[in-house]
């Protein structure tokens, strides 16, 4: 049983996605429990795999017994093991949290909704677990297609935003496919470990250089690094709130994981950071992404739109930290994949809860929100403190690693951008807290009329509190996470 966990993680959600559709014909009430069961199984499998990896090193699973490089291999090491746990945990928390809201707002479309939801998570888990470059492309497209459909379910301009996302996303995925084509052309293999073994003798080749650059461009498009971010704000802000808590924390983070995987495992660190000589340029891109993301977040007038620009800035954190190419910064970048997924989940769940009750998340409508939705706002405060980087929340620790890495690399612009972005985040969130807590300012000498508590459904509150607790726990245990997992995720050549 336990040796089949890598397959189970993918197969159970995949089958569940179809079962949900069938369940929708029989009785729509079965849809959500099936989805929850599939994601719980995936989470359990992922946790077991991480424990297995921690005990005995990387796990390799041959699909249907075909040995690599012919067959498709699933490889789980410290790096993707932890990302698997993050993906399944975030998806499960969001599923549970939004279940009552979905049951009310999408009562007629429960089966398609949950089917797409589970398929989306299957794709993400597959991207993370696979050890085959072409398989990754297929799963990437599964994720993207279901993501487009989920975003298109939103109201107002969501279909248009989703269509724009399709254009950018498809170009990105096509570039990745083209890059893999060049890799196949020069090595004759699609298995990542096999490519990595063949490549070193070909590092002088222009074809390999083209493969790397084209792959990375495609991935930058998919992860919305600054000049290629155009699709993200509208797609995430206009998506139904119940799915933006799934898509926003996971898509960009998983794409960053793919970048790390391609740059470190398929290519060697010596090639990526040494021979290629583009690290500095990409760190500068990341600096611009952080600064521009923060500036654009400042000019927003609604909560979700503001959060999407924070996501863009956070992408800059991780890309910059990774390409600084020293151990501390890379630890920060990998740790930030985990932390940022958790804190983005927390704030987007809070935004979902607010939008469910207020039907709007524009700042002027948030007056008195602390009295109306105290639990939601408590979670939002924890999420905000984590994004700003206040200890003991987890955001502080990854930012600390990133900052020390930036100083160690002597890249002070990156350090300055991080500090600037933290300050801007503080301004952004405390502006919301001010509106929510103090406005409307009393005119008659009395405090504002006591408003009745009007909270979101109980599952949402449970999820919110769980997400907020996770943020603090991740912070308290960040030392253990770094020494036990992330240290093994980063190759030893990087000092």
């Amino acid at each position, binding site marked *: 049983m336990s040796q089949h966990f890598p397959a189970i993680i993918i197969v159970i959600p995949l089958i569940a996605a179809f079962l949900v559709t069938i369940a929708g014909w029989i009785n729509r009430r079965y849809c959500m429990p099936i989805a929850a069961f599939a994601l719980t199984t995936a989470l359990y499998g992922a946790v077991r795999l991480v424990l297995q990896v921690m005990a005995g090193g990387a796990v390799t699973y041959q699909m249907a017994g075909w040995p690599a490089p012919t067959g498709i291999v699933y490889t789980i090491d410290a790096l993707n093991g932890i990302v698997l746990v993050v993906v399944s945990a975030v998806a499960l928390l969001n599923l549970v949290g939004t279940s009552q809201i979905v049951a009310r707002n999408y009562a007629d479309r429960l089966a398609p909704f949950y089917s797409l939801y589970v398929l989306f998570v299957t794709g993400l888990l597959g991207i993370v677990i696979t050890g085959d470059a*072409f398989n990754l492309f*297929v799963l990437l497209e599964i994720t993207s*297609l279901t993501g*487009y459909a989920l975003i298109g379910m939103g109201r107002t301009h969501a*279909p248009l935003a989703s*269509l724009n996302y*399709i*254009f950018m996303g498809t170009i990105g995925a096509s570039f990745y496919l*083209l890059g893999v084509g060049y890799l196949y052309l020069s090595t004759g293999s699609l298995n990542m470990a096999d490519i990595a073994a063949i490549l070193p003798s070909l590092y002088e080749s222009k074809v390999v250089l083209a493969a790397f650059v084209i792959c990375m461009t495609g991935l930058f498009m998919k992860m919305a690094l600054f000049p290629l971010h155009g699709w993200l704000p509208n797609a995430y802000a206009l998506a139904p709130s119940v799915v933006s808590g799934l898509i926003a924390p996971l898509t960009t983070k998983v794409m960053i994981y793919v970048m790390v995987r391609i740059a470190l495992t398929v290519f060697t660190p010596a090639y990526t950071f040494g021979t290629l000589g583009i690290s500095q340029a990409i760190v500068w891109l990341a600096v611009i992404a952080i600064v521009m993301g923060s500036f654009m977040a400042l000019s927003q007038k609604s909560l979700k739109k503001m959060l999407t620009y924070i996501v863009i800035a956070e992408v800059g954190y991780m890309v910059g930290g990774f390409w600084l190419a020293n151990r501390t910064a890379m630890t920060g970048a990998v740790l930030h994949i985990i932390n940022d997924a958790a804190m983005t989940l927390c704030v987007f769940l809070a935004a979902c809860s607010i939008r469910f009750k207020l039907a709007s998340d524009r700042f002027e409508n948030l007056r008195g929100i602390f009295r109306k939705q105290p639990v939601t706002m408590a979670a939002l405060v924890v999420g905000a403190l984590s994004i700003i980087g206040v200890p003991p929340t987890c955001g502080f620790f990854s930012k600390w690693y990133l900052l020390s890495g930036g100083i160690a690399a002597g890249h002070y612009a990156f350090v300055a951008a991080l500090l600037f972005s933290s300050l801007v985040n503080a301004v952004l969130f405390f502006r919301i807290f001010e509106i929510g807590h103090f406005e409307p300012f009393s005119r008659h000498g009395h405090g504002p009329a006591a408003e009745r508590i009007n909270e979101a459904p109980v599952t949402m509150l449970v999820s919110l509190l769980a997400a907020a607790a996770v943020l603090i726990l991740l912070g308290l245990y960040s030392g253990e996470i770094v020494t036990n997992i992330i240290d093994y995720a980063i190759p030893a050549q990087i000092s």
Partner: protein
Amino acid sequence: MDAALALIVGKYNYWIYIVLMMIGLYAVVVKKNLIKKIIGMNILQTAIILFYVSIGAKKGATIPIIAHAHNGGGEHVIHAAEYINPLPHVLMLTAIVVAVATLGVALALSIKVYKQYGTLEEDEIYEKIRES
């Protein structure tokens, strides 16, 4: 001149895929009509499919079915060089499915967009969004 000509003629499959890809990219970026953009996106995907298909082909090779296999086939020596490489072609079956699915989702969304705004011209849509 001769060298350039040799480069173009000798590697014509790559030139064709690059030209097609750029046509697709141009359409996605520049065209205002959403359907034209979707077509451009599809041309881009098709270009990459053609690229993959062309790298599997070999001069003078045959389809990858082992000849004389009906009487066991074991006694014949199989030269891989005589057969085209089927793997890129098989990969592209998947990529074609992906491209069709993307096209389907994009067209479905453009129907939704058309119902909502009554037009598929991007500038007209943005004008309507600004007015509302």
